[in-house]
């Protein structure tokens, strides 16, 4: 554990070496999600709601998904180096070390500038909390925390899945972006607005609705069933296929080494 902590601190320090660079990148991240926010804001200047959700409730969705994404990507985004590690044969070096392979890849590739995204999402959450019409009792707050935490796990798993795909194909599968970067953008509306089919897909295949739409219904008091509140926990089941796929990929691995 100490080792990983060291990795973590070293990376944080090295990224902080170029302070201007770091803050510029962070500012850029901040700006990116800020423009998405203004996109929503300007649209809702003209309309009053989407289906039966108000502006405040849409903002709540936006900030929950954005926070989950930024945490998930901060940890998992670095896995995008996997294809390079495979091609360069550097993975072999990692494989011979008697430590967790996943952590050895993640820790040195953390991208802390994603905190810019997180900061912006928190500001929006600050606006959404009073505007959403949710009564903020203790259980409701806990559900919100659960949404964000389980959401970041789901996003992390998505990054893991796509990185692992590199074991099977040499080419980059950039169309899978639609589930990571795409869901960051589309998650701004409650996922039910995209229709039955999409909602079902996002419930049973990629469980993003479980961390956004269903618990939202509970928060708004439209559903009393505790299952809705605990839906984010079910989303954690997504870890199982992700890890299995990763394991299979690792077993399938044959070094390109010379």
């Amino acid at each position, binding site marked *: 554990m100490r080792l990983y902590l060291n990795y973590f601190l070293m990376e944080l320090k090295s990224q902080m070496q*170029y302070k*201007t*660079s*770091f*803050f*510029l*990148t*962070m*500012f*850029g*991240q901040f*700006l*990116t999600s*800020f*423009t*998405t926010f*203004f*996109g929503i804001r*300007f*649209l809702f*200047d*003209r*309309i*009053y*709601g*989407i*289906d039966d959700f108000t502006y405040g409730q849409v903002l709540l969705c936006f900030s929950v998904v954005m926070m989950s994404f930024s945490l998930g990507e901060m940890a998992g985004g670095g896995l995008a180096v996997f294809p390079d590690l495979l091609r360069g044969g550097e993975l072999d070096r990692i494989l011979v070390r008697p430590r967790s392979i996943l952590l050895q890849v993640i820790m040195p590739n953390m991208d802390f*500038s994603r905190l810019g995204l997180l900061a912006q999402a928190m500001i929006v959450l600050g606006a959404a909390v009073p505007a959403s019409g949710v009564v903020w009792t203790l259980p409701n707050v806990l559900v919100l925390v659960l949404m964000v935490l389980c959401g970041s796990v789901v996003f992390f798993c998505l990054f893991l899945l796509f990185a692992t795909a590199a074991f099977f*194909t040499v*080419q*980059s*599968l*950039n*169309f*899978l*972006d*639609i589930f990571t970067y*795409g869901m960051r953008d*589309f998650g701004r*509306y409650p996922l039910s*607005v*995209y*229709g039955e089919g*999409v909602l079902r897909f996002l419930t049973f295949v990629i469980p993003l609705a479980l961390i956004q739409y269903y618990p939202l219904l509970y928060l708004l008091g439209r559903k009393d069933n505790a299952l809705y509140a605990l839906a984010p926990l079910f989303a954690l089941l997504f870890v199982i296929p992700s890890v299995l796929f990763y394991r299979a990929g690792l077993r399938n691995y044959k070094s390109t080494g010379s």
Partner: protein
Amino acid sequence: MKTAFRVYTSMFGIRFNYNLQYRAAVLGAIAKGFCWAMMEILGYLAVYRFGGDALPMDFSSTTAYVWAHQSFIVLFSVVFADTEIYSAIRTGTVVYDLARPVGLYGKWFCESASNRLSFALVNCFPVLILGLLAPAPFKLTLPASSPQLCLFLVSALLAFAVTVAIAMLMYISLFYFISQRGIRIIVRSVTTFFSGGVIPLVFFPESVQQVIRFLPFAAMQNMPLQILCGTITDADAVKGIGFQVFWLTALVFMGQSAMKTATKKVLSLGG
């Protein structure tokens, strides 16, 4: 002049073949563009279900806007994977480029243009065709009149040139900054937002529109896309094209003089 032209066209040819090599990646990009546009339209469908009358564009125009935006997204994005240029600036190999008997501005302009165009031809235009074939509410409808279509083509070409001209200014700024990644992210979000890449500019509040419609970003994808979906027509479209020509000239002029100043500084650094 003639040889210079040949240099540029062959540079384009090389790029084009290079991008064609990865078939699976091409299919992936098409699938991504298609799915992205469909999700976007589904979102708008929900928006229009509730308060469509309040929006300044009708639903079929918005659909056309989304399809065209997704199809031409590479053509009109300032920040694109122009890896050679970025690494030339970062590693200093730009001095080799300076030694070549081709103007650096022209060379980079051409490289970035062909990077985008060759990628767009292969990966993005099929999305447009899929849009034309999509079922009823999602279908892309092109303007009926052929003059409008011609205006669109002219405007698209100009928007493309303006995009590359802004990208050139960004490259030049990279001579002065270490953080390429930071600059790229900032430039991407600003240009995307103000050119109508997040939501169409007509959806912005009136007061904001008063200002942003004069910015160079409005001369990018905003103009051709609005002409295509019919919110800007006839005389206004011609005026819009004039506006694009103005910004293109200004930006190229600015870029060239900035390039001169910047490369002077690079030369003094070289050992």
